[in-house]
């Protein structure tokens, strides 16, 4: 399978990338592990692929109580990262994404903006209360991840906006987090996945694979929430499964917070 004809342009700078993305149907490519498969299926037919993979938007750094993850950071790098207590869910989740080959190229920023309703890491980022720094030619803005994820494969970001930083508050001392999923055995995507953050005075849980986007579980639980079903798993089954992974993630996060 070969993608439809497209041009390729390697951005030398963020400003150049934003300019190149001004062309109709332009698409940014980083690791390409989500984009290239859909280009091969010709679901995506970008006029030009703007390669941002060599920009300086890379790295994992904790400073002043905040974790900064460059959007071009790969799953392999995140899986190997040693982070502060409370952030355990990030490497745990990264370690289980795709396979070695996908983790070597796939990036956290690419995954977030691809907005697959069953993607794993957005659930973790939602539970941890992550925010995104976004750049356009008009300047920079900061937004919550919740506000960015608006529907399946749909974000609130403009075509000429790029995520430049993923900002995660380091949880207070005595916290723990975890990610647990039950995957479709062939695709490896989550039928239901849950991320839990347990802090001394509160908990936050987010789920994936069961709705139009990954989302934070409301205080009252999943009872009143609409759950999505498809030919792989009915809504009824997914609701049941979501309850199971939520409890497993919560228990694991609690155990870590106690440790």
């Amino acid at each position, binding site marked *: 399978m*070969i993608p439809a*004809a497209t*041009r*390729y342009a390697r951005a030398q700078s963020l400003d150049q990338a934003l300019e190149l993305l001004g062309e109709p149907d332009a698409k940014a490519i980083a690791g390409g592990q989500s984009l290239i498969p859909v280009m091969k299926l010709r679901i995506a037919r970008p006029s030009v692929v703007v390669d941002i993979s060599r920009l300086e938007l890379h790295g994992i750094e904790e400073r002043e109580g905040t974790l900064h993850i460059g959007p071009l950071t790969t799953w*392999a790098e995140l899986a190997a990262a040693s982070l502060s207590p409370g952030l355990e869910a990030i490497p745990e989740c990264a370690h289980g994404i795709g*396979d*070695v080959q996908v983790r070597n190229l796939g990036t956290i920023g690419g995954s977030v903006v691809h907005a697959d309703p069953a993607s794993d890491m957005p659930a973790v980022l939602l539970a941890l209360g992550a925010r995104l720094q976004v750049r356009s030619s008009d300047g920079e803005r900061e937004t919550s991840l919740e506000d960015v994820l608006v529907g399946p494969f749909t974000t609130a970001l403009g075509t000429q906006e790029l995520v430049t930083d993923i900002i995660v508050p380091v949880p207070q001392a005595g916290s723990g987090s975890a990610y647990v999923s039950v995957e479709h055995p062939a695709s*490896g995507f989550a039928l239901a996945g849950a991320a839990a953050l347990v802090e001394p005075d509160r908990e936050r849980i987010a789920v994936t694979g069961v709705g139009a986007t990954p989302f934070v579980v409301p205080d009252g639980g999943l009872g009143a929430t609409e759950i999505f079903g498809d030919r792989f798993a009915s809504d009824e089954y997914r609701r049941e499964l979501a309850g199971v992974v939520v409890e497993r993630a919560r228990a694991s996060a609690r155990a870590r917070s106690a440790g």
Partner: protein
Amino acid sequence: MSDTPGLASARPSSGGADSGSAQGITLTVNGSERSIAVEGRALLVHALRDGLELTGTHVGCDTSQCGACTVLLDGHAVKSCTVLARQAEGREVTTIEGLAAGGELHPLQRAFVEHHGLQCGFCTPGIILTAADLLSRNTSPSDGEIRHALRGNLCRCTGYQGIVESIRAATTRVAT
């Protein structure tokens, strides 16, 4: 050269102006600098197989699942059917042809021969390169770690037992 769409000998692009037309790139393949003309849409696997005639890299599923096309890109295992050739410009690619040094099989290759790590052999180049990536990061992986590393490589002959044994045997060899 072939008529694979995306490579230089492909029929001229029907698009306007320079739409996706072939451009030369240079990359290091198995230690040698190689140049090839590729369209924007060309996949690395086709550049290797059809452009550079390195047909040890196999196309299996062509949908990013089976890992038969795995090569090392700057030392990391990647699926070459899920990388644009242009993305590899200026980078180092290692294919199965580049693993043996000075006529000596790589320890992984020898171990696969000795421990029945293959039957039909179609998946083997990709599996060996994935294993090479693993051993570069972890010189004494457990069986569990070996199996986790092989998740992106499908073998429909062996049931994996011989593959895991081969990698385990190579680990000992690399370590000693």
